[in-house]
């Protein structure tokens, strides 16, 4: 049962991820991105991390994607027009195919480790309380650094969106 759901979610998320970049209409791309993020959220649920799953849906699938859609609709972008495949695209596809084959061979060669039982041994790992505790004890410092990372992002957004002289 678990394996079935995992496979289903994995396939759907990879498929929708592909569609994000293959769709010609930006709006459709964004909607597929929402689907991908929802699938990932579902995977978090399966990892008994319901809080992170909820955050994922609320922030990414909800807030950020809505913002994306909003902007796209405001700008009223036309569908992207494309010419023939460029040299780079062909090279890219070839390289990607080779990498895929290499990865598959590697996966066959290296046996994956058995389930460490890590999750089952620590019940409540993904609960709000557990996440909150670890964020404000063990991971307090990374948490605070992340805030500066966001600050840098904000300054950057201000700079890049500044009216051209």
């Amino acid at each position: 049962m678990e394996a079935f759901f995992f496979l289903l979610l994995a396939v759907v998320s990879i498929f929708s991820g592909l569609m994000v970049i293959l769709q010609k209409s930006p709006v459709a791309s964004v909607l597929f991105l929402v689907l991908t993020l929802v699938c990932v959220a579902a995977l978090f649920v399966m990892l008994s991390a319901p809080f992170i799953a909820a955050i994922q849906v609320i922030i990414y699938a909800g807030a950020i994607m809505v913002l994306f859609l909003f902007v796209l609709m405001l700008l009223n972008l036309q569908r992207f027009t494309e010419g023939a495949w460029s040299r780079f695209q062909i090279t890219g596809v070839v390289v990607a195919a080779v990498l895929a084959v290499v990865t598959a061979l590697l996966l066959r060669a290296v046996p994956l480790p058995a389930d460490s039982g890590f999750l089952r041994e620590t019940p409540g790992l993904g609960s709000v309380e557990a996440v909150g505790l670890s964020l404000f004890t063990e991971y307090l410092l990374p948490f605070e650094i992340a805030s500066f990372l966001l600050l840098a992002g904000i300054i950057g957004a201000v700079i890049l969106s500044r009216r051209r002289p």
Partner: protein
Amino acid sequence: MDLSRFNLITIATPLVLGAGVLLVMLVDLLSGRANRRPAQLAALAVVLAAAAVCLATWNTGGVSFFGQVSGDGFASFFNLIFLAVAFLVILAGPAYLERNAIHFGEYYSLVLVSVMGMAFMAAGTNLLVIFLGLETMSLALYVLAGFNPARQSSNEASLKYLLLGSFATGFLVFGIALVYGQIGSTDLARFSAYLAGAGDPFAGYMGAGVALLLIGLTFKMAVVPFHFWSPDVYDGAPTVVSAFMSAAPKAAAFAAALRIFYAPAESLGLPWERILWILAALTMTVGNLSALNQASIKRMLAYSSVAHAGYLLLGILAGNELGAAGILFYLASYVFMNVGAFTVAWMVNRRGEGRYDLGDFAQLGFRRPLLAAMMSVFMLGLIGIPPLAGFFGKLYVFTAAVQAGYVWLVVIAVLNSAVSVFYYLRVMVIMYMRENEALKDVDRIPATFAAVAACALMVILLGLIPGSVLDVARAAVASMP
């Protein structure tokens, strides 16, 4: 709750920088639209304060914040390097920014934020902290690269750096995830302990994890084959930013690499050695050969910095104390040479931003003798002519590699250094021996000149007292937990 677990001494320097970022933004906000001088002065004061704090807390903070950071001598040493670079580009920058009409106060806060990120890369004893530090640094750099929105190449540099940098970050995060999956922790002490344990260190996810970590870091170092971004980005970015980018982030990436890989170096074994051997040989050769034929001084310096990453990799590969200390010394001298060379490059540029032709240097030796003499010091230092600092950096790193048994790689490195003479020397030939092309005079900018002079002095000084600086670097390496 035990508050001693949050020992602020360990993060005193980045803390000052973080507060400084806010202070600089505030000062810039209050000082009106046209006047950026207060922001610059505030930024300089913040850097000096951070340096003072760094010296005062040198090697006093142990591991803290639940094993996330270590305020040891290693972190202090690198902090001083980063702060020196920041000080120089903040001191030298305004003239350039004014010239291009992009003098915004955010320049200062972004430089400080990125230095703060670097400080965490050097201090982090947890992969997560190193990753966050790297991201903070990179995000600021992406923006700085695109700091001149009016110029297409600057936008291109920013976008290229952002896209490729995100890929590299993706690799790094994936690597961290795989390591976590294998050992259930991102703590570096656990990481080295696991690798040192019995059995194949690369069993399970570990092999792929370590490989991805390496890719993520070598991207930031601009190691072949992950170097393609660097000439375009250094070339397109505003030159003050190129000076900063070619020096400090490279140092930070090596700091992180030493943090992660120095302790478990011996247990990484043969595949690791082979990969690094090939990467080092490729990087210095490709970097030097590409630099040979560049007409733009910025691209030439970009490729030369690729080559230097190759020499530095020798120190990582050697994996011994001298190799690590040699990297510290090398970087301490390298940053001054690079910042100085880039700064002189924009000072003498008279053909506009898009054209950094080597011909700008024609007759500089007679137009501005002192400036030309200092440029010569940088070029000779980059070649590695004794008794300048660059020579000792190379000597230490190469010696460490010989001690570790990589004689042939050192021979390749020495031959590469000989090749590099051609393009560094060309700058000097042009400065002193090419006929005048009736170029306009170089502006006299006291602050920028002072920054260049400080770089030149450091390159000479580090060459006169290489022994004592190496001792400090050794102590710094030994202080790593």
